[in-house]
């Protein structure tokens, strides 16, 4: 059987398994196992555990449970409510103020950590319940967090940009700087959409009379006294962010280690300030943490096995090589590369896509004179997009984990407009590439 046939078959079988409703982690694993048995030398079946272990043996990857712990700890207390009440006190005159508060909270958190699922989890565990309580539709509430969380890999520091920099031999410092402009653009677009959608939902609610409608229509009376008294409640969170920022930029810790500091800081804060030390409280935090992080880690583990088989059978390479050999013009090529990466993003995590695709695309990108720093940013936005597209979208799973009551379908529908906004951002970047390249070109010394 030739590579193309095997590739189509592999894709088909995996889709059937995924859509059958099997847990995604096991579907990816089983599909990989089947094709390993069918098309690869038998020795490979003997090293499945080893392949998985080797891929997980990566500290940066393993910070996910720590970030999840941080989020679960904060999420358990009224800290989340405090944050959003306070931000809302200041933003509530703006339509969709609480939604905006969430977008900004995601952006701030993204500036602290390099991982999107972690951003999602930390902000979402307290943000989503608050949004839903205030009458935001489940779709909008989860969409804000799913999309806001993706900023984690665009706003520096970013693990994705580091990997791209290593794979494409581009300056990581430049890449980080290049992420700032487009990150701000996305925050702006997200905020704009949240305001529009909020107004629409309010209009619809005006015709109804249920609890959700009342929640969204309720006109809060917030005085300056409320606003000022809300400030001290933000203090613990402000201190935590400050500690994390100092730890990271002050040379205490690496971006990965910040996960540990954040987790301990959040736990200490929760126990001391929020008096959350009853056995039941602790159990909830522990159980929530482990369920969520294990769900994500198991998908990562088996998706690595899946990627390994795809790579060994030459499926990824075949597809990419074919794309390069078409000899298309710059923008047609760019368009199809985008489509290709989006399709890969349906199934694969950013790490796998970057490591497999970048080396193959580089010759064509160079030949067509495409700025590799700029392309890295576009690619990262495509990776962000992949984090909120099914069937494998890490942020979707995180949100599914932290809000088990909300149907995946609603999360998907709520994220859809944000996918549109990300594509719009890419179009804007094509028209005005300076949004990404201006900062590094003017302010970056060296390299």
């Amino acid at each position, binding site marked *: 059987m030739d590579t193309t046939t095997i590739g189509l078959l592999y894709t088909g079988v995996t889709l059937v398994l995924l859509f059958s409703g099997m847990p995604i982690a096991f579907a990816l694993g089983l599909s990989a196992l089947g094709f390993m048995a069918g098309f690869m*030398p038998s*020795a*490979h079946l*003997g*090293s499945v555990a*080893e*392949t998985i272990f*080797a*891929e997980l*043996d*990566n*500290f*940066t990857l393993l910070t996910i449970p720590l970030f999840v712990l941080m989020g679960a700890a904060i999420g358990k207390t009224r800290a989340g409510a405090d944050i959003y009440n306070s931000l809302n006190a200041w933003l509530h005159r703006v339509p969709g103020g609480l939604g905006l508060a969430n977008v900004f909270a995601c952006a701030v958190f993204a500036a602290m950590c390099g991982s999107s699922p972690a951003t999602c989890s930390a902000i979402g565990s307290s943000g989503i319940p608050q949004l839903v309580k205030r009458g935001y539709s489940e779709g909008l509430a989860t969409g804000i967090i799913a999309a806001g969380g993706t900023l984690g890999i665009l706003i520096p*520091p970013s*693990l994705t940009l*580091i*990997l791209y*920099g*290593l*794979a494409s*031999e581009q*300056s*990581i*410092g430049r890449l980080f700087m290049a992420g700032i402009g487009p990150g701000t653009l996305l925050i702006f677009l997200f905020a704009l959409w949240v305001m529009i959608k909020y107004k629409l939902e309010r209009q619809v609610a005006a015709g109804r009379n249920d609890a959700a409608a009342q929640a969204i229509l309720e006109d809060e009376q917030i005085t300056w006294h409320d606003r000022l008294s809300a400030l001290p409640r933000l203090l613990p969170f402000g201190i935590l962010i400050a500690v994390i920022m100092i730890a*990271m*930029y*002050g*040379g*205490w*810790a*690496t*971006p*990965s*280690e910040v996960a540990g500091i954040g987790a301990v800081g959040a736990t200490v804060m929760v126990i001391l300030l929020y008096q959350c030390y009853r056995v039941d409280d602790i159990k909830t935090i522990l159980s929530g943490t482990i369920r969520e992080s294990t769900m994500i880690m198991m998908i990562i583990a088996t998706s690595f096995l899946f990627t*390994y088989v795809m*790579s*060994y059978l*030459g499926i*990824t*390479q075949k597809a990419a090589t074919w794309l390069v050999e078409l000899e298309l013009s710059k923008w047609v090529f760019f368009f199809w590369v985008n489509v290709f990466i989006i399709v890969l993003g349906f199934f694969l995590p950013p790490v796998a896509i970057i*490591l*497999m695709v*970048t*080396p*193959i695309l*580089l*010759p064509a990108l*160079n030949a067509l004179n495409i700025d590799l720093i700029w392309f890295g940013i576009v690619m990262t936005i495509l990776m962000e997009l992949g984090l909120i597209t099914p069937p494998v979208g890490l942020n979707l799973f995180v949100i599914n984990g932290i809000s088990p009551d909300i149907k995946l379908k609603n999360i998907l529908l709520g994220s859809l407009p944000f996918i549109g906004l990300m594509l719009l951002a890419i179009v804007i970047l094509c028209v005005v590439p300076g949004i990404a390249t201006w900062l590094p070109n003017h302010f970056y*010394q*060296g*390299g």
Partner: protein
Amino acid sequence: ADTTVLKLSHQFPASNGPDGDFRDQLAQKFAAEVTQKTGGSLKIEIYPGSSLMKTKSQFSALRKGTLDLSVLPLAYGGGEVPEVTLTLMPALVQSYEQGLRWKTAPIGVELEKILEAKGMKILTWVWQAGGIASRDKPITQPEHMKGLKVRGGDRSMDLLINGAGGAATNLPSSEIYSAMSTGVLDAALTSSTSLISYRLNEVAKSVTTARGKTFWFMFEPLLISMEAWNRLTSEQQKVVTEVGASLEPFAVEGAKRDDQRLAEVYAKSGDTVVDMDDAAFAQWVAIAKETAYKHFAENVKNGQALLDMAQAVK
């Protein structure tokens, strides 16, 4: 006739053109010449940039035969085959020429024997030198390392760093850059090529190159798994061996070019570029013998004998 396809995995960036990573170029040259000389009966597929498997999985995969060929830092296999730690022992190899003389010396024969028993075979002997990127002052003598947090990246180098009064610091390679930019790390030891490709020139203020003396020499051979080797016809085995050996001068040239390029790249971004002299080198050798060599002799079966054999190569 039947075509045999072998898979070659390595961790280095894919190269396009003569300016690319020389280890990928080596793999490409090897593949092209083997295919040509076997009349197409043997084909080699290259998976650069760890696109097939993780860097650390390659050694074990060669042993088991799930991977056919690889260009890899042999010392990565130290956890499975402790003897290979010898190939990243500080100051044990002091020049490219001396490294290549291992091939015919008793230590080379012994190393090949050990590897073949573990399921792999050396096709091309590749050594690579490295240096020290520092966030502040250049590091040439051991005393310059006092109190600094330094990433050695492997046990022997860590022992040397601690022996010099530094603090060996464990970090994933992907985090060296950010760690050096924030000051989590003061200095890092690695190959000239990696010092360039990690772009540490952006965050370092000085670099000690391998143009003069260097205690950092790493063995990074092209290896074939015995499983794959045994699948080849004797004609193919002959071609593979010959092509492998014929690429050794290319590897030396590539490694030396990167040592030179390291100096140029760092100088261009305004860093202080220094070389190590014989006197400083002698101080490092003394510390290495007290630390890394001692540990190796005490913890590896036949360790002292292997060290003696290696030191006998002049």
